[in-house]
């Protein structure tokens, strides 16, 4: 199976202070990996480092055959990485159609976004800033898919959304991985939903990897999840 992302002993953070420490993680083609953990655990920091938007402090990241470049982060995207950040990063003053066009890479088109999110078809001329939260998230993921990525990273898809909307959106990521062989790295607060769609999961707490393994095994080990989120001391 093709290795798309290899993170080896990574430390990363802000202003020289590590938020993530000694992280090992990998994502292969066609699999969904969930990166879980409480707020402040370092999940978003990890994705920003992979995208080249944040420099690593130690260790190595190899994404689609090469390291990310903080001087030219756009090269990571052009290599085939699509990053849907926590804040969606839509261009709110542009229309849905224009946002999708911005995602298209050479040889691609916007139709793939409409295949997975047909509801966007009726909204093409509407400004992105006027969409509902669920529609905005569809657009953010749809724009990422328009790039026909080999590695898709989605940060907090569920942020600010009703659970029923999240239940509709998250399975799309599984479907994308199955249909296209895209590797998906998903950061998510809805732990059980994320484990349902993931092949494997890694759990961070205070910047360190505290558990990793097949998603179904982790889902069965409720105590591991509780310790990670609430802290070991509170369990006992």
């Amino acid at each position: 199976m093709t290795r798309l992302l290899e993170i080896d002993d990574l430390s990363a953070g802000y202003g020289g202070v590590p938020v993530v420490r000694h992280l090992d993680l990998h994502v292969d083609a066609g699999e969904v990996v969930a990166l879980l953990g409480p707020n402040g655990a370092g999940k978003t920091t990890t994705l920003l480092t992979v995208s080249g938007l944040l420099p690593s402090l130690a260790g190595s990241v190899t994404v689609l055959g090469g390291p990310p470049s903080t001087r030219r982060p756009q090269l990571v995207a052009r290599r085939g990485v699509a990053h849907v950040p926590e804040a969606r990063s839509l261009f709110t003053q542009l229309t849905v159609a224009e946002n999708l066009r911005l995602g298209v890479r050479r040889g691609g088109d916007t139709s793939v976004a409409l295949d997975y999110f047909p509801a966007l078809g009726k909204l093409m001329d509407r400004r992105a800033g006027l969409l509902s939260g669920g529609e905005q998230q569809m657009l953010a993921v749809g724009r990422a898919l328009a790039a026909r990525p080999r590695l898709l990273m989605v940060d907090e898809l569920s942020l600010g959304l009703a659970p029923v909307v999240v239940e509709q959106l998250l399975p799309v990521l599984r479907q994308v991985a199955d249909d296209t062989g895209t590797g998906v790295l998903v950061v998510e607060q809805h732990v059980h939903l994320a484990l349902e769609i993931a092949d494997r999961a890694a759990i961070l707490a205070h910047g360190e990897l505290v558990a990793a393994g097949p998603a179904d095994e982790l889902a069965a080990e409720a105590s591991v999840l509780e310790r990670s989120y609430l802290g070991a001391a509170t369990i006992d």
Partner: protein
Amino acid sequence: MSQFLQYMVAGVALGAKYALVALGFVIIFKATGVINFAQGGLVMLGAYLTYNFGVTWDLPFWVAVAMAMVVTALVGVVIERVILRYMVGRPAFALIMITVGLLFILQQVTVAIWGDDALNLGDPWGLGTFRIGDIVIQERDLWAVILAAAAVAVFFVFFRYSSLGLAMRATAIDQEAALAQGMSAKRVHAAAWAIAGATGALAGVTIAAGSASLDPSIQFIALLAFPAIILGGIDSPLGAVVGGLVIGITQSLTNGYQAEYLAFLGSGFQSVMPFVVMVLVLLVRPYGLFGTPEVKRV
């Protein structure tokens, strides 16, 4: 009535010149989110380069204009590459102050090369006129309108349909998100400065056309174009043109009628009137006539 129409024609022509200057401001703002105070310097440099190629080197006028547009565009790219590239992501006020500094540098360089005496641009229109009924139209004014209309058409198509134009709009809205989408902010910024330089040169030619009217003071017309861009909406090419026309017509009508009907306002009030109109419009439409309001569903 013919007097009124005469003032209107003069106002439209003046407005077209403002519009060309304003378009340069708009493209830099759309791509970088910065108001470029050096645009007046590019306008001035473009006019002097046209003089240099057309009069000093004796090249055909339109060849001189084209070459001036190319060289001013290159100057814009050099400014971006040598100075502003290193300011990407820095506070907007720092960028704005740099553009103020660039205006003074461009002025000094221009005076050092060509002096500060008034020069004849060598345009083919001179003071030539033609008539439509009772209305006298200057040839140079007609060309200013044609060139402004052509420029705004090109701008419209560029921003709406081209990938680079769309990338410019996206980069102006959210640079980090644009980078994450694989867009190169540096490429977008360089292209914006090149286009602003070329447009500035075109504006400089229309302003300086006619006999003995090329001198360094033409850079200050950029200040008078300011109400036009604010009025029209600083991120809208169409707004730049409409704003330019409104300001031009306002100035022309004030110039024509104020001494007769509002003499107590004193002489020179036509220079103040555009700012009065700008304030009145902004009170009603804070984003200008065609500017994009910040829209967000809450």
